[in-house]
């Protein structure tokens, strides 16, 4: 087999894996999920006392929605479960979320502004990932 055919076939396989792992979703749906992710992170370090517990619960619900919205859309398209790189990415996201929840839950008011900024960054990154512009690891799709 010559180099060009081999490269074409390898690229074709990579595109197919990506199409199943992270299918391109409609913009409004991606924007909603991104807003949920961003708002969830931003709310993690807000409030104090009872208000903090309420915002923490709300933040967890928003983070769950950020994951469930694209997953549900994917399932409706006939793709069930994750495998390979997408599963590893999901595990990484879950661990990051856990770290953010622990840090945000014990954060002082001084960190609230930082978490808002972090929320904006997360929203942008989540949207880019769902639209297929950004792949985990910082690589961009060609």
């Amino acid at each position, binding site marked *: *087999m*010559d*180099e060009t055919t*081999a*490269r074409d*076939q*390898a690229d*074709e*396989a*990579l*595109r*197919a*894996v*990506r*199409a*199943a*792992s992270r299918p391109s979703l409609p913009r409004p749906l991606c924007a909603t999920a991104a807003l949920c992710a961003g708002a969830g992170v931003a709310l993690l370090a807000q409030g104090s006392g009872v208000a903090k517990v309420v915002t923490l619960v709300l933040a967890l619900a928003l983070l769950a929605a950020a994951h469930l919205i694209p997953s549900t859309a994917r399932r409706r*398209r*006939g*793709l*069930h*479960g*994750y*495998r*390979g790189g*997408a599963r590893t990415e999901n595990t990484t996201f879950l661990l990051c979320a856990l770290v953010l929840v622990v840090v945000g839950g014990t954060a002082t008011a001084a960190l609230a502004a930082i978490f808002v900024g972090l929320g904006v960054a997360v929203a942008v990154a989540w949207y880019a990932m769902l639209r297929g512009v950004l792949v985990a690891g910082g690589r961009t799709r060609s």
Partner: protein
Amino acid sequence: MTTTTGGGTPGTDPGLDDVFSNTVRLRLCAYLSGCEEADFQAVQDYCGLTQPTLSKNVTVLADRGYVAVAKVASGRYTRTRLRLTDDGRVALDGHVAALQAIVGQARAQHDA
């Protein structure tokens, strides 16, 4: 027929699986490797094939043990779901690794 699971077929490039010499079958298996299971319709839409053509390719892959086919009740209808088996995954990984090796060797020759 010689079955190869990443080990290559005599007379062809080592590591390449003759089943995946058909691009449709390569695309199909690669698509299935990104999920646990996929509906037949979803695979058909992605591959852009007619139902008989996809069925024919799925049969070839199922005969090799690379793809498992299951019928799942969905309301009044029955959906066909496809899943890449462990053997299929090994074969696909081996084939893609062989493709990348060919590209890598060619690149090394160009650089030399």
